[in-house]
């Protein structure tokens, strides 16, 4: 495209710019390292003067996520961002959002835990993002960008999926992608939706009751267990539908591979370098990169069991996604894990060593 503007910016900044450009109506957040640039960039850009987007620094992550609940419940396209300890605080709200089936975007630029942990990058929030985190049987749509470009692109995609399924979506990034500067082509400007468009797209939204309809009520409460079970069954059907339709992944040099690395986000970048090194030594290895962590690319990972001799799950954590890989291949081939903890990023040669150890 001739008019494509290529910019150099941080992943966090890309999130902010993409939000303004994709017609986001509101951002509610609280500062925490390493994601504060999202709110800072928005404050600097003043979108309330241009697109009319609301930007508000809340008193806590608990409050931000409930502002997101409020905004999503009245039909608006709203988001928040935080990092691991802040996202932990949001888990109550995440569960309510999932229960009330509200579309929204939560960005986690994750860091090492547990507890206050470290401000250095980590992928240790995989379980929290993909296996619940909050209470109850629910799922988030979880996208894992591995470049600044994907940080920008996944904002709109997240909203699209969130509204399509009336479900909260999450971008699970980490301090590497959030802080790293890379070239990025920002998405084109899309106007915010009008009141009519919102009413059409979200007829369930609580934004004032039109004369000809019953009140719209946003809630996750139902005291009758038989009705509550029906609601849960409906939710599970929706999740099954998402699992069926929305799996996204990238394959890299898998065609002739004897071994596969499965890695997401920043770890996938390290994996690509490790693959280059390994292939230099004659080891045929490729990469399967889940882009959607939930829905997890179960079929694609399962297919690896007939193709490769072993899988290395490269994660910047103590081994979380590896459980899903083992389930997918039904333990029919060896699945090893390699990762570093506490904010240490594994180096490509360490990954090659781990690969050799598995072989």
């Amino acid at each position, binding site marked *: 495209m001739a008019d494509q503007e290529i910019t150099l910016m941080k992943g966090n900044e890309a999130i902010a710019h993409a939000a303004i450009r994709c017609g986001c*109506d*509101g951002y*509610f957040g609280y500062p925490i390292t390493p994601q504060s640039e999202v709110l800072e960039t928005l404050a600097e850009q003043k979108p309330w003067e241009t697109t009319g987007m*609301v930007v*508000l620094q*809340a*008193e*806590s992550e*608990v*409050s*931000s996520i*409930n*502002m*997101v*609940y*409020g*905004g999503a*419940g*009245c039909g*608006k396209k*709203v988001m928040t961002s935080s990092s691991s300890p802040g996202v932990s605080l949001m888990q*109550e*709200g995440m569960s*309510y959002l999932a229960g*009330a089936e509200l579309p929204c975007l939560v960005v986690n630029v994750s860091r090492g835990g547990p507890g206050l942990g470290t401000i250095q990058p980590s992928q240790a929030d995989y379980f929290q993002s993909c296996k619940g985190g909050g209470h109850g049987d629910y799922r988030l749509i979880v996208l894992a960008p591995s470049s600044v470009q994907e940080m920008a692109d996944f904002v709109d995609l997240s909203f699209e999926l969130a509204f399509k399924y009336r479900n909260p979506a999450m971008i699970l990034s980490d301090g590497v992608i959030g802080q790293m500067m890379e070239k990025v082509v920002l998405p084109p400007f899309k106007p915010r939706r009008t009141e009519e468009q919102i009413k059409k797209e979200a007829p369930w939204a*609580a*934004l*004032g*009751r*039109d*004369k000809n309809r*019953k*009140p*719209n*009520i*946003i*809630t*996750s*409460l139902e005291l009758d267990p038989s009705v509550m079970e029906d609601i849960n069954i409906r939710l599970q059907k929706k999740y099954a539908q998402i699992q069926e339709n929305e799996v996204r992944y990238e394959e890299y040099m898998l065609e002739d591979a004897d071994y596969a690395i499965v890695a997401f986000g920043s770890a996938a970048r390290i994996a690509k370098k490790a693959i280059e090194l390994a292939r230099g030594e004659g080891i045929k290895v490729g990469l399967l990169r889940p882009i959607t962590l939930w829905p997890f690319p179960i079929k694609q990972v399962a297919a690896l069991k007939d193709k490769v001799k072993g899988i290395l799950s490269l994660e910047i954590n103590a081994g979380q996604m590896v459980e899903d890989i083992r389930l997918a291949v039904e333990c029919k081939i060896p699945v090893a894990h390699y990762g570093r903890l506490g904010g240490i990023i594994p180096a490509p040669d360490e990954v090659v060593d781990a690969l050799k150890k598995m072989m």
Partner: protein
Amino acid sequence: MDIKEIIQPENMVYHKPDLLNDVPMHYCPGCSHGVVHKLVSEIVAEMGMNEKTVGVSPVGCAVFAYKYIDIDWEEAAHGRAPAVATAIKRLWPDRLVFTYQGDGDLACIGTAESIHALNRGENITIIFINNAIYGMTGGQMAPTTLMGMKTATCPYGRDAKLHGYPLKITELAANLEGTCYVTRQSVHTVGAINKTKKALRKAFENSMQGKGSSLVEIVSTCNSGWKMSPEKANKWMEENMFPYYQLGDLKDTTNQ
């Protein structure tokens, strides 16, 4: 005059507000919530805002407020109603947005959300039902439980050494720059109900005129929790609650 002559549509001087639907309210007999629900229903209609109002219901006895008043509602997590309302009002500035919260919701678990929404001067109304007890969960101690008052979790009476002091959050709110109108009312008599209606109307109008946050506390009874008849509970409230939670306007900057 025959009674049939009087009972004619043209002679009707009071009826259940139209916005209050026919679903039987789950509240205990004599509960103050019902009276406040009626007032909210009346005022929204009188302001012509039926189609432009979003209420935020809490966790507590009023959790099902959305079942009874036929406007759009969002049901918030415990204590988070002011955060939910903040977003709705900022995203739809021409809507009438209010929260309806009890003492536990507003003055305990949601203290941060309440104080900060009020301090930001969000153009919302917070309706605060203070009955000094947790009704929904079966009568436990609230942040506003009076000294010496017995509840399920302070069965020997509230003791400052054990439980701290009853929180006058409305006084706190009056000291915040963001609030324009802070008042404490009650609904135990016809006169009190009329005053509360005026206060709520004023608060709602403030929010539509962009004057800032309004907090309307309504000192209420919980006759079940207090283990009294509704009539006796009203009397007990007058004798024990009012001296500590004094009625009247605590702040009004709307005429300045």
